[in-house]
């Protein structure tokens, strides 16, 4: 319940924040929904917390040249309730709405969540399917990486020491695109046992583009390229969904064995694909 002592720093600009984060003992604090429980359980003990909420410009949600730019400090509630996101990138809003509970969504941020990279978090599935671009700032400048490159492993991302997620960029969906996020939740924690995001373009039932993102199933979120290829080559959703588990080393814990998780992944993939197809019409 009680964290180790730490120093609390409140930068007023991004360069100042980056300067403070150059200290290896410093850790960025956004909404704190992942970090603070870990500190309270003494599983994390940063000596310095750099609170980003005073850094201007990190909470905005805007449309720019065919993409939505989501500031890293936009909360899950900002995203699920944003008219812009709901209209132009409903998959992201849907994933945000599945996170935790109201209080967590009020406080937790997209940047904080993805930087934590919990293997059972909801955003990664959506961001993989959306082929999102994540902007990472460092003292040397800002670089953009794809979601596929961003999520490296369990609790591991492409964010390097001293770097910071500053923005998530997702496409404005074209007409005819249907999306859905389907999640089997772990009843105690509310995290995903598996979550599948499907994003499809279909013309009269023929799928021309399929993007499938998966979370919870293994140590890291991923794009199910095999499923995508099957869908794009005309396989029916059920058959395509069955391929989601191919070659996957699935997580196993008291909530779901690997075997059951793989099964759930197939079931939820089929659900997501069917729902996305319905939405594409």
């Amino acid at each position, binding site marked *: 319940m009680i964290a180790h002592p730490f*120093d609390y720093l409140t930068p007023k600009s991004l360069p100042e924040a980056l300067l403070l984060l150059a200290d290896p003992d410093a850790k960025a604090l956004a909404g*704190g929904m992942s970090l603070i*429980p870990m500190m*309270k359980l003494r599983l994390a003990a940063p000596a310095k917390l750099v609170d980003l*909420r005073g850094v201007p410009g990190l909470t905005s949600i805007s449309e720019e040249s065919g993409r939505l730019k989501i500031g890293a400090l936009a909360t899950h509630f900002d995203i699920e309730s944003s008219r812009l996101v709901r209209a132009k990138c409903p998959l992201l809003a849907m994933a945000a709405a599945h996170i935790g509970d*109201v*209080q*967590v969504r*009020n406080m937790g941020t997209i940047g904080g969540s993805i930087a934590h990279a919990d293997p059972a978090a909801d955003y990664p599935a959506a961001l993989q399917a959306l082929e999102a671009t994540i902007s990472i700032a460092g003292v040397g400048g800002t670089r953009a990486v794809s979601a596929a490159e961003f999520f490296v492993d369990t609790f591991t991302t492409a964010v390097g020491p001293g770097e910071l997620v500053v923005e998530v960029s997702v496409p404005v969906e074209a007409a005819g695109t249907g999306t859905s996020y389907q999640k089997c939740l772990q009843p*105690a924690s509310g995290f995903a046992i598996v979550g599948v995001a499907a994003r499809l373009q279909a013309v009269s039932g023929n799928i021309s583009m399929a993007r499938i993102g998966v979370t919870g199933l293994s140590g890291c979120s991923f794009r199910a390229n095999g499923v995508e290829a099957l869908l794009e080559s005309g396989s029916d959703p059920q058959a395509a969904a069955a391929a989601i588990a191919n070659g996957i080393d699935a997580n196993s814990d008291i909530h779901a064995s690997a075997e059951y998780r793989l099964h759930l992944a197939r079931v939820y993939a089929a659900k997501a694909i069917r729902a996305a197809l319905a939405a594409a019409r």
Partner: protein
Amino acid sequence: MMIAIMRRAIAVTINGKRHSNEVEPRLLLIHYLRDVLGLTGPHIGCETSICGACTVLVNGKAIKSCTMFAVQANGADVLTIEGLASDGNLHPIQNAFWEEHGAQCGYCTPGMIMASKQLLDRNASPTEEEIRHGLEGNLCRCTGYQHIVNAVKSAAAKMGA
């Protein structure tokens, strides 16, 4: 790992009253409210941000005050259960919890009421499903939640009337 840490000056408006204190950065908002200011309405029921007994509104948003440091609330406007009634009149949600027997042991009740306030602030006439969705961040071990659902429905009706 014992390091000497500077205390921080914070100023927080709580239930309409401004408070200024120097606090250790690691002091949780819930402990600031309870131990420093004596506002013991919000409770602590877990340490993993699941139970919601510590729910208060910060700048109008329901948050779990056990998962926020007091320093993060510097400059914020906080509403706790103690600030909900005005001029000695219970808030309609409080009255509805009373009328509908929404509390048994009462430990989850302050958090439940504050989460209900957030719910009704955002949706004045929620369906049963919306009520349940809106309160899923608050655990109660006594009531089976049914009377809580009734209370929120009843409060919504009264507040809309």
